[in-house]
């Protein structure tokens, strides 16, 4: 209705001859359920010794026995505190501001604790430096209660005491320091001022200390490029809310690119306001989350990306390059370039190509544009690793130069491509200590495993961006006998203060200024420069407009003075700390000094030309990426994340090789759906430089560039996790030279892999119009009825809008009094990141069911994010496309049109219970277990439910979930609800459901009720914004807004009358309390 687009959820649906699609539209299952297998076997039925009468006897007896046994109630003990801590009131939650900094994810968060147990991660709204907590950060609380955590320090086979470990290690370190061998600290990126100072102390004490920072997924090239240009090791900061044109060449910036956290800013610009929204053009090979959100996505191979970037540079900045690219790509590049140029300072370009030249080119473009979205003055500090330093370290270790290696927050034996070389080197060291949460791949190979605390048990500080500091504080007493890396360093250096006091010292001395430490700890964040005034801070507080000129000055000064660190820009970190980063990366900086001396344009064009020179490829090109759910693989033992469906493929519990349809056909790789709706995929062997990863499951990914394949990091862990979690293959072995792009050869292998993909679950049953979308042009120029028409139904042969009471089957209840909750979902602001999905899990005790069950469509997610593909494969769309394409590009365009799957558009749609005012589920419940509340929520009384599942069958949105099994305290489901430790994460305000009952989204009624009660207790009215659900408060993008529509001033009440608003399947007449807002795409070409 809104458009003639055809939406599809899986490639299968595009195949006109597919019997599966046909059957799925008519039937619940593709094939008949094989009931005959056990009912049709007459012989076995007759030979069975159990007669029907016997069976009934047993049933009768066991029922009677069970009910008799239930008559006696258990004795329940209650144990109060001996001395109750002042701040803890049983039943009332406490919130603490802290920071996650695990080397991959950095975010300021609020931790909700109940009776001293952290149970949920929320966004810290005071934090400006990071975006909202992503799915992994939301899930990190479960890592605290991981039953496989190290419970104490281990030496060899057995536990040792910390006193022994510390004295043995200190003694050894002193010995080694005297012998002149290297002492190496191999750590994650801490970005911590206090840790830097501490490592400085450590160096002073032991002399020959080499601190190597290692990021599992490296941003080394970007760091080098930034350092070469701005003399500071960091990453440029981007605020996409200030951009009107975004051109991304292979940068998955809505996911984990350069530390992530850019999605909140991006989403701001995506909401059409005053007829304007940002235009996003994405050139990429894998179908990434970012590409899925783009207005225009151009699939191309990684080597073509380099050419595109060079071409883009020459078109925007100047200079001429000759690139060999297909015509349609060339055209796309020049259009993007002209849009960038016309946007001027409101344009921004980014790239994810792991190449220093590429990164330099992008910096140059943004400088040239004087982009407001680009900020080099407050660089991001959360990636500091250096590939070269790591390589040097491995060489040194194997040469026997390294005496001691102390690791913290890293797992090189899993994450290094040349792990075996590292292992050999490790064996040659005299002392090896790993600070680790788990007995993982690396820590089990070292002499000592120093049991490290979880970040929720630790102290720490982070400089997330220059001048933007954050504090980490413990939210629970350490569960086990653990000691954090920094405390151990303090002990080894003979310091007798705790790390907490050490941080306090650092902050009071050089960060805080006039602010008190307690205040900073309370807020969790501190921005330097807002309170302290001084010449040294002016750079970080300068407005963006002037920053580039300031930086140019700075560069000049640097060149003239020859000083690497200009004191004028050093904020917060002492010089000695900075030296350490420089020493570790000195080899890389020397190679880039040449760029520094050149004039800006010349540097850029030479870099662009170098880029073209490096753009060679042979065979298939593999792009390694990190999945939204798994990141670098640290949290592989987290069942929430394992069961989190990937936003694009909707696959859980796996990583896989994404292949384009054309390549799959050429290679003989297949995807097929089987009887129960499950997806099967071929296996492939992937080889890079003689290293082969065997039996990688294959998913045919619409939008994957032909000639390219993709594989995600983070899977294939072997140690430190439960068997169930040992999923997927390890992609790090293909991550050679820390380059995410590799030339590979792919060969089909035998066998089919069973995926647990929720992609084809709950089909639309032939109903369309779930997603509504339009273009910015139509949105601005045409009436609402043209692009967001209210569905009409026939009443006495007169077309009547479905919202009219005349066509209502039901009597309307009066809901005008009290609260009436509505949840609004803006399809434009939703990037599909999935933070809400995990937040919902944590808040509502949603069980994890495991791969087998997910495959059987028994996933329990209360909130799912549906992903729809669409393409202009309507006749009208094809015609326009044909007409618009000029010259030789027509060949490519026609080729593309042959398969709709080549480059689909993607839309994400979070779907939870719609809380229909006229709910179909409520009328069919035989026991009245589900009923409607006056506040608009559809209630579900679990204890009343008898499990007929009529409601689920009658739900048009397929949001009801059935507990097929008892998922807690059941060895069959050994995830987190099966041990006392894991159950500590459960929210005590929400009941844990049992077998045989239906469950679904409650619109977080426990949270709305709490808000109401708090207001009643204080005797005040409720302000807009106080009502929140887990998903709406987790959404850092502002896509989800929750509130009371009876409060006419509330944001959600205003959204209800917005012209983009529509309800899902409105023509069914269910009158949902969840609103959706039409997706608008900015298809404006230059």
């Amino acid at each position: 209705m809104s458009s003639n687009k055809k939406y599809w959820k899986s490639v299968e649906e595009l195949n006109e001859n597919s019997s599966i699609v046909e059957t799925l539209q008519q039937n619940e299952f593709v094939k008949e359920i094989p009931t005959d297998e056990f009912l049709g076997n007459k012989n076995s039925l007759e030979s069975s010794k159990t007669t029907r009468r016997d069976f009934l006897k047993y049933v009768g007896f066991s029922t009677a026995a069970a009910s008799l046994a239930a008559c006696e109630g258990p004795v329940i003990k209650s144990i109060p505190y001996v001395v109750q801590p002042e701040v803890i009131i049983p039943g009332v939650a406490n919130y603490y501001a802290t920071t996650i900094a695990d080397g991959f994810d950095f975010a300021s968060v609020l931790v909700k604790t109940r009776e001293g147990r952290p149970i949920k991660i929320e966004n810290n709204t005071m934090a400006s430096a990071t975006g909202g907590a992503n799915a992994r950060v939301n899930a990190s609380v479960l890592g605290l209660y991981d039953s496989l955590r190290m419970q104490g320090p281990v030496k060899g086979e057995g536990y040792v005491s910390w006193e022994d470990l510390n004295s043995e290690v200190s003694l050894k370190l002193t010995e080694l320091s005297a012998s002149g061998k290297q002492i190496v600290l191999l750590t994650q990126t801490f970005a911590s001022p206090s840790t830097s100072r501490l490592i400085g102390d450590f160096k002073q004490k032991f002399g020959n200390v080499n601190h190597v920072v290692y990021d599992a997924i490296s941003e080394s090239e970007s760091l080098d490029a930034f350092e070469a240009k701005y003399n500071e090791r960091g990453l440029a900061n981007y605020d996409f809310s200030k951009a009107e044109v975004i051109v991304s060449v292979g940068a998955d910036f809505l996911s984990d690119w350069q530390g992530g956290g850019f999605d909140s800013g991006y989403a701001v610009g995506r909401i059409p306001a005053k007829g304007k929204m940002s235009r996003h053009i994405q050139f990429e090979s894998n179908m990434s989350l970012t590409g899925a959100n783009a207005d225009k996505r151009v699939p191309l191979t990684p080597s073509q990306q380099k050419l595109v970037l060079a071409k883009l540079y020459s078109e925007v900045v100047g200079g001429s390059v000759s690139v060999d690219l297909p015509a349609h790509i060339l055209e796309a590049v020049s259009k993007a370039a002209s849009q960038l140029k016309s946007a001027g300072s409101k344009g921004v370009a980014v790239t994810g190509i792991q190449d220093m030249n590429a990164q330099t080119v992008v910096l140059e473009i943004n400088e040239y544009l004087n982009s407001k979205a680009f900020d080099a003055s407050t660089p991001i500090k959360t990636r500091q690793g250096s590939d070269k330093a790591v390589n040097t370290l491995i060489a040194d270790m194997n040469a026997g130069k390294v005496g001691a290696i102390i690791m913290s927050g890293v797992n090189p034996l899993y994450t290094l491509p040349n792990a075996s070389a590292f292992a050999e080197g490790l064996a040659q060291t005299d002392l090896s200590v790993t600070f680790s949460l788990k007995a993982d791949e690396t820590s089990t190979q070292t002499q000592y495993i120093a049991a490290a605390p979880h970040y929720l048990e630790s102290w720490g500080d982070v400089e997330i961006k220059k001048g933007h500091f954050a504090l980490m504080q413990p939210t629970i007493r350490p569960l086990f006998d653990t000691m954090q890396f920094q405390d151990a360093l303090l002990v080894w250096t003979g310091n007798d203060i705790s790390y907490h006091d050490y941080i306090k010292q650092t902050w009071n001395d050089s960060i805080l200024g006039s602010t008190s430490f307690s205040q900073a700890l309370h807020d969790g964040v501190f921005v330097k420069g807002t309170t302290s005034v001084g010449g040294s801070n002016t750079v970080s507080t300068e407005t963006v407009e002037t920053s580039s000129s300031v930086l140019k000055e700075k560069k000049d000064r640097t060149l003239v003075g020859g000083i690497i660190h200009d004191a004028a820009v050093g904020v917060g970190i002492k010089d000695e700390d900075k030296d350490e980063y420089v020493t570790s990366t000195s080899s890389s900086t020397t190679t880039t000094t040449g760029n520094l001396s050149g004039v800006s344009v010349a540097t850029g064009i030479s870099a662009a030309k170098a880029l073209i020179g490096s753009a060679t490829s042979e065979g298939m090109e593999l792009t390694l990426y990190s999945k939204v759910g798994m990141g670098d693989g640290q949290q592989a033992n987290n069942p929430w994340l394992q069961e989190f469906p990937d936003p694009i493929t909707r696959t859980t519990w796996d990583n896989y090789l994404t292949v384009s349809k054309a390549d799959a056909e050429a290679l003989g790789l297949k995807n097929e759906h089987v009887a129960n709706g499950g997806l099967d995929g071929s296996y492939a062997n992937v080889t890079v430089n003689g290293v082969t990863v065997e039996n990688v499951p294959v998913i045919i990914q619409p939008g994957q560039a032909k000639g390219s394949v993709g594989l995600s990091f983070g899977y294939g862990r072997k140690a430190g996790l439960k068997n169930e979690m040992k999923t997927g293959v390890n992609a790090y072995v293909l991550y050679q030279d820390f380059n995410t792009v590799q030339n590979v050869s792919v060969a089909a292998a035998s066998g089919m892999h069973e995926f647990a993909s929720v992609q084809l679950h709950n089909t639309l049953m032939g109903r369309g119009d779930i997603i509504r979308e339009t273009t910015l042009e139509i949105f601005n120029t045409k009436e609402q009825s043209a692009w967001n028409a209210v569905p009409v139904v026939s009443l006495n042969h007169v077309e009547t809008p479905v919202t009219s009471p005349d066509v209502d089957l039901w009597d309307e209840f009066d809901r005008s009094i009290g609260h009436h909750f509505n949840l609004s979902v803006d399809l434009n602001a939703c990037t599909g990141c999935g933070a809400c999905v995990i937040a919902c899990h944590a808040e509502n005790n949603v069980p994890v069911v495991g791969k087998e069950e997910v495959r059987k469509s028994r996933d329990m997610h209360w909130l799912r994010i549906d992903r729809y593909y669409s393409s202009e494969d309507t006749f009208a769309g094809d015609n326009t496309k044909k007409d618009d394409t000029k010259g030789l590009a027509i060949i490519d365009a026609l080729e593309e049109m042959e398969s709709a799957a080549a480059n689909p558009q993607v839309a994400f749609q979070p779907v939870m219970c719609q809380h229909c005012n006229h709910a179909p589920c409520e009328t069919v419940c035989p026991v009245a277990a589900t009923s409607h509340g006056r506040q608009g929520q559809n209630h579900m009384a679990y204890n009343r439910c008898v499990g007929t599942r009529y409601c689920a069958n009658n739900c048009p949105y397929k949001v009801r979930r059935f507990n097929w099994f008892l998922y807690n305290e059941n060895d069959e489901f050994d995830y987190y609800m099966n041990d006392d430790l894991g159950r500590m994460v459960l929210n005590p305000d929400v009941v844990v459901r049992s077998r045989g009952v239906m469950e679904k989204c409650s619109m977080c009624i426990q949270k709305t009720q709490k808000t109401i009660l708090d207001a009643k207790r204080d005797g005040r009215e409720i302000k807009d914004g106080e009502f929140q659900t887990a998903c709406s408060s987790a959404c850092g993008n502002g896509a989800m807004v929750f509130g009371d529509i009876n409060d006419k001033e509330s944001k959600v009440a205003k959204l209800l009358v917005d012209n983009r608003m529509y309800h899902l399947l409105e023509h069914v007449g269910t009158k949902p309390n969840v609103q959706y807002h039409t997706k608008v795409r900015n298809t404006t070409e230059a």
Partner: protein
Amino acid sequence: MKQVSNRKLGRNILTLSIIFILTLSTTIFAQDGDAEKGKSLFNTNCAACHSLDKKMTGPALRHIEQRLADDQGLGIEWIAAWIRNSSGVIKSGDAYANKIFDEYGGAAMTAFPQLSDEDISNILAYTAEESKAPAPVVGATGAVAGATSDSGISNKVILGALALLFALLAIALVLVRSTLNRFAEAKGVEIQETNRLPIWKAFVKNQFLVLVSVIFLLLASGYFLYGYMMQVGIDQGYQPVQPIHYSHKIHAGDNGIDCKYCHSSARVSKTSGIPSLNVCMNCHKSIYEVAETTATEEYSKEFYDGEIQKLYAAAGWSDADQKYTGETQPVKWVRIHNLPDFAYFNHSQHVTVGGIECQTCHGPVEEMEIVSQFAPLTMGWCINCHRDTNVKVEDNAYYTKIHEELSKKYGVDKLTAAQMGGLECGKCHY
């Protein structure tokens, strides 16, 4: 009843005479002090740190004047000086003062310069009183035990006698009948044997009667079965034995402590909270024994004192050293009111917002020596209350608007919890 009141009279006389004797004796010891006034002064000023017979923060003070005079040769002047300014005495280098100061951990006694000479001698008079002997109480308890068992026996005797009477009557009846029969036989009167059917056969033959009685039986058994089944899981009257015999009667009843003093979280939280032991120790640091009058027939003073010792053990309080040892044993109370997990109940909603008395649901706890579950805690019980109870909307800005609108809708001034939506499933089940 008569016996009991007599015994009480006897005890009263006994107590009175003891007091009388004690009063006499005190007048002999402290010639110029008033022990009654001294007692009140002692309780106001000294009792926080001193006890008569027990070392607390400061030393035990019984016969302190005499002991000091006998052992140290120190007179009332020294005592007065100490009370008014102990640190002055210590500084003056007084040997005994410094000894005491060191013995009690170097904590100087609060100075009481406001106490006059008369006050001090009154206090000393009080400290010079002999401790009361608890013996008469024990005797009285015994007497009561006897009395109660007597009345129990008498009831049984009456019942037994009645039963005997009925048995005799029945036997007499049978005898009369047989005698009459014998007479008839002797006199040759022929008793006509009516060929009547035995009653059970007649009953079986009457199908209507059978039907009615079967229906009746089925209905009756159905009624009782239903009654029994509906009791399953309802623990009204559940009165478990607790690890420490905590008497709500003494605390909330006799001493009138507000429920929410200990159960403070009921005001703000969903749980009323079992008080942590540090709350107990607020008072029990100085209350190490119960008063004589607290003891009852059932529970002696020794019993109660023993329970306080249990508290000390749990809290890790060393009564002898007057300090915490740090070795605690958390108390495993037996939970009485158990709502199932699927029912959400919030105390603060009812206590703070609704202003409902604790006793409404928990019964007369202040009269319960051992707490038992008062209400059935069934859903029907909750719902009934929600139907009947008006919501306290006065002076609560949250309710202003909603009350106005709902009143108009329902045409009533007062709104029940049900009209506010208090019967919706999702308000308590999620």
